[in-house]
């Protein structure tokens, strides 16, 4: 079997090797386009977050390239699907950094995935603009890590402010066991004493659980006057349904994690009455004209609806902020990772979808409480809470 390979066979193999090496080299050094990496959870649990994020980023890529790119350079957005999986997120990040040679990475979609990437981007010295909410992503501050969503710590403060204004001090908590739920629970438990709020029950649910009647029954038996639910869909939708079934009549406060159409669709009637802090996008048309964000919000909502025939939501908005920050930085300082990072760190008065950003070396999120409004669901629609 092991005859000496013929000369032509060896020549063919060498030729193939040479051609693929040239090809690979060509691939990664393509033209002089600006490469931006993106990691979104397009599939898996977090797909309601990752899908609009990907769509928004790609919409912006098209808009920029249609206008001739950045200073004459085309923008190339390389999007990978993390499948809502932290391990995959790390592998794909390495791929973006080492093989695709991107200048910055936007995303990932979830807290768990973002936390997993911190070491990788710090070592590789590449800016990461996460689209996930936990305050822990940017506190303590890491040199290369930024995020665009409002922090869960801020959301917690809004929720507590509301409860305090209603004179409610005994509260039950139902948090998901995923990254968002776990860090949210920590933020809530840490801040509660300052508002005089006590958790009389603290239960958990899995992101893929199908029935929460047991936890709610337990909560019903306590003195809780309100329920805080902290997680992303579909869990909170099921919780609202189960609560209605059990006749649990206390006010339900959710996190900004449910601020999309999926919650309304899945919870149906049970969604009415739920209260949550959310970015202004959900109720943009009811904002006063003097609001600095209003025109940016309305134009994003319009463009997104025109292109994808569905409503834009806050999650896509986080990607809008991240992508726009990166492309603005590129326009100012060119394709240099360190300069882009510096530019991001010193961003002032950036009017985005998630809020008005003011970054600093100590604050890589750049938002304050003003980025949220309290919203409720009335007749199956999002309305600003008066």
């Amino acid at each position, binding site marked *: 079997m092991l005859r000496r390979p013929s000369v032509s066979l060896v020549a063919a193999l060498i030729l193939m090797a040479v051609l693929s090496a040239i090809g690979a080299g060509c691939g990664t050094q393509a033209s002089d386009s600006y490469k931006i990496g993106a990691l979104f959870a*397009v*599939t*898996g649990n977090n*797909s*309601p977050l990752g*899908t609009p994020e990907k769509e928004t980023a790609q919409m912006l890529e098209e808009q920029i390239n249609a206008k001739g790119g950045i200073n004459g350079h085309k923008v190339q957005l390389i999007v990978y699907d993390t499948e809502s999986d932290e391990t995959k997120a790390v592998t794909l990040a390495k791929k973006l950094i080492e093989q695709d040679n991107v200048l910055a990475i936007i995303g990932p979609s979830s807290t768990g995935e973002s936390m997993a990437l911190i070491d990788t981007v710090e070592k590789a010295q590449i800016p990461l603009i996460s689209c996930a909410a936990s305050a822990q992503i940017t506190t303590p501050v890491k040199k290369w890590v930024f995020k665009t969503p409002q922090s869960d710590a801020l959301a917690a403060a809004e929720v507590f402010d509301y409860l305090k204004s209603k004179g409610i001090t005994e509260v039950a908590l139902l948090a998901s*066991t995923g990254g968002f739920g776990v860090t949210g629970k920590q933020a809530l438990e840490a801040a509660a004493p300052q508002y005089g709020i006590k958790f009389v029950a603290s*239960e*958990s*649910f*899995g992101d*893929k*659980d*199908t*029935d929460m*009647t*047991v*936890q709610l*029954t*337990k909560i*019903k*038996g306590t003195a809780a006057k309100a329920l805080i639910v902290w997680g992303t*869909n*579909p869990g909170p*939708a*099921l919780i609202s349904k189960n609560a*209605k*079934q*059990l*006749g649990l009549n206390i006010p339900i406060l959710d996190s900004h994690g449910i601020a999309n159409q*999926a919650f309304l*669709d*899945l919870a*149906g*009637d049970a969604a009415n009455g739920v209260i949550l802090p959310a970015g202004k996008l959900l109720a943009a048309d009811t904002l006063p004209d003097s609001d600095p964000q209003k025109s940016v919000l309305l134009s994003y909502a319009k463009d997104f609806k025109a292109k994808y025939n569905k409503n834009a939501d806050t999650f896509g908005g986080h990607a809008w902020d991240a992508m726009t920050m990166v492309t603005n930085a590129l326009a100012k300082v060119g394709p240099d990772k360190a300069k882009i990072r510096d530019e991001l760190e010193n961003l002032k008065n950036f009017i985005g979808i998630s809020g008005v950003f003011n970054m600093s070396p100590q604050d890589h999120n750049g938002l304050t409480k003003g980025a949220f409004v309290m919203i409720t669901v009335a007749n199956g629609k999002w309305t600003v809470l008066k």
Partner: protein
Amino acid sequence: MSTEQLVQYLVSGATLGSVYAIVGIGFTIIFSVTGIINFAQGEFVMLGGMLSFWFIRVAALPPPLAFLLAIAATAGVGFLLERWAIRPASGSPVISLIIITIGASILIRGLAGQFWGKDAVHIPPFSGDDPIRLGGATVVPQSLWVIATMLLVVAALKLVLDYTMLGKALRACAINRRAAGLMGIDTKAMSLVAFSLSAGLGALAGVVITPLTLTSYDAGTMLGLKGFAAAAIGGFGSQLGAVAGGLLLGLAESLGAAFISSSYKDAIALLVLFLVLLRPGGASGEGG
């Protein structure tokens, strides 16, 4: 903790347990007739729910027709699985056939995700959403449908297995495939029947549970695992064992979440499975 709460926990446990029981029965049928553990069983449940959603929302069919079509279509998938994936490999050791079913489950899940997207979907409950008070607990009508369906399935299966020729043939294969073949029973056809039947039953479980729990392309994974646990607890050969196993599992989950910790709900259920597998006879209770 009041009696009201206890009753609520028991009802939740029984509802969940009934779903696991139906899935477990699916595992048991295929195992007893062919010796294969069909890891695509969970996916059949998912297909029942997803296809119903699709027929109702997209094809705008009336729900009862949509449900029947969904069950028939899924039974068809089971049929195809046996015909195209299992039968061609029928000379191989059982472990290879089991691995083939794992591959099938991944394929079905992937295709469902591509075709229907990754989001959770909802189908309307059979008889409305208004909760019923039952001895201190509130139950939605759909939970009662789930439990009733499980009981119906058990009764219907008993009838078929004990009083029809087909049923006798299936039982013969379960007792000893070789001997059944020698007695003139077409074991290949029985294998086909077992897969189609289990697929149809899985789909039925999916149809009744989805109005309660929503479904999504990957809902089959956890359900399949828990159905497998139910069948294992009951000793793989017996239908009633699967029912007992399913109910036990559902109650363990519910009471574990209530009295121990809701964070470890799944862990408790899987612990029960683990303990069962450690029995001297192993999962099937044979030997020892």
